[in-house]
């Protein structure tokens, strides 16, 4: 019985040592709170790009923190504008090159036979408006405000391919992103209250790429942009998650050794303990 207690204690100590190890192993090189690729507090809260008094907005959180309990998040974007006018909100994630794979049947089996790269695909794209977007844009705002469809038609394809094929791959890309919740809707609804307050929910799924997202609100009058505000929204893993991911990305070999030690210790002592019960 005393031996068992001793084993349990030893196990706990070693496990704790393992969990704490990344912090020591990492040393001073990496700031555990914020991976180096992401800007620190300098970015938030930032000043609006254009700062006319007729449009202000804020978010219910300054950043999206991916913790161990993260299951996706809904942020509230709210603000106020000087009437009259309509509000359009555009949230877009950091652009990246995405490779779209297409499966085809080959000898009865489904396997990837085609691939197409696209540059400058936003990690996330959500556009919301207080009125049907077509109606707002038909009056010729165009320019900066892009519907999801327009935004996706601007992504550049990598290499040459005939345009019909390219369109199919692009539609496939939008479908996949939509299923993952990264393109939440064609067009969301901005709710206006008391003729000058606006609000919209921004849904973020659990599989959310990290990076600095761009949140913009526009005030439109007679189809013209009369005011625009924007702010960055950092999305990043925090705490233990950030520590582990940073460690795995930058110190892969060391992380591997840590993973092996963890498995050895838990396997050895866990096995020994459970066998005695």
């Amino acid at each position, binding site marked *: 019985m005393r031996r068992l207690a001793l084993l349990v204690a030893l196990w706990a100590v070693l496990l704790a040592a393992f969990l704490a190890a990344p912090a020591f192993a990492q040393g001073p090189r990496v700031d555990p709170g914020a991976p180096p690729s992401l800007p620190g507090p300098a970015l938030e809260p930032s000043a609006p790009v254009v700062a006319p008094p007729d449009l202000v907005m804020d978010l219910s959180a300054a950043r999206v923190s991916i*913790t161990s309990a993260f299951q996706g998040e809904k942020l509230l974007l709210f603000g106020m504008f000087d009437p009259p006018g309509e509000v359009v909100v555009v949230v877009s994630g950091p652009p990246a090159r995405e490779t*779209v794979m297409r499966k085809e049947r080959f000898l009865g089996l489904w396997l990837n036979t085609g691939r197409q790269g696209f540059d400058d695909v936003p990690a996330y794209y959500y556009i919301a408006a207080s009125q049907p977007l077509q109606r707002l844009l038909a009056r010729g705002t165009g320019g900066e405000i892009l519907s999801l469809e327009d935004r996706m038609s601007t992504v550049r394809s990598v290499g040459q391919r005939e345009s019909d094929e390219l369109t199919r791959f692009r539609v496939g890309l939008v479908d*996949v992103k939509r299923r993952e919740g990264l393109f939440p809707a064609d067009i969301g609804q901005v709710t206006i209250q008391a003729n000058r307050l606006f609000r919209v929910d921004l849904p973020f799924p*659990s599989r959310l790429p990290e990076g600095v997202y761009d949140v913009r609100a526009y005030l439109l009058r007679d189809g013209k942009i009369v005011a625009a505000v924007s702010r960055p929204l950092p999305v990043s893993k925090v705490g233990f998650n950030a520590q*582990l991911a940073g460690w795995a990305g930058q110190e892969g070999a060391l992380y591997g050794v840590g*993973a092996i030690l963890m498995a050895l210790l838990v*396997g050895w002592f866990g096995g020994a303990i459970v066998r005695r019960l």
Partner: protein
Amino acid sequence: MEIYLPIAEQSINVFLLLGLGGVAGLLAGMFGVGGGFLATPLLIFVGIPPAVAVASQANQVIANSVSSLQVQWRRGNVDLRMGLVLLLGGIFGSSVGVTLFTYLKRIGQIDFVIAVLYVVMLSAIGGLMSVESLRTYFRNKRHPETPRGKLHQHYMVHRLPWKMRFYKSKLYISALLPIGLGFVIGILSAILGVGGGFVLVPAMIYLLGMPTAVVIGTSNFQVLFVAANVTFLQSATNGTVDVVLALLLILGGVVGAPIGARIAAKMPGVALRGLMAVLILGVAAQLLVELLRAPYSPYSLGLREVLK
């Protein structure tokens, strides 16, 4: 209760992972092979990216084998010399395997290769096992006491050079044989995230002709080091080992293994092998259906590269 996995980059139910680890442990306890062949496809099935599933599963295999090796070592069931020779091939094989894995991942064919390899291997092993256990079952019915024949069969392969004596296994065979076997298992281990016990154990019995008593322990020994090599290389080259995922699987497995061992002690060997054959064939059939069925959408996303 959901938990966010930092490397797989998604949230998943904790109890699902504990349960999966528990089932893998149960199998490990019952059949003496790791449950990797079952756990990896299941992880992929619940939506973990195959690259992360395979690499993290290799991490889990370490814990599984060390726990089982502890018992086998104490009972003196490890042929260290054979284990080391197997390991020589295993380290080579797993290093080649991780390189192959990285390449296949880059060209976007890793999911397909994983699925096809599983189907081929599992149906072959499941088929052989079911034939064998059926045969034993009917033979035992007719003559409960089979006279013991030669220690093992002699094949062409026994004429290979570099013969070595393996005292514990009572074998005098070419070292090339276990090295080659270790090499193949190493590749499988790296690409499929399995320890390879379910291939190694039958191969040691039928191909090398090792006595059954030392097979499990020796297999555990080789699997432990090969899995460690895979974990290290996957982590260093692909960064796809998710320790949170692995830890949950391990904790489930630690509880499952002794339960499996207790069940195994109460069941006759033939029934045990028959059951395992059915299980293996079931997983193979499931994977085959996945390959044959039209996907929900033919499109999927490959690598996402942030351009600087």
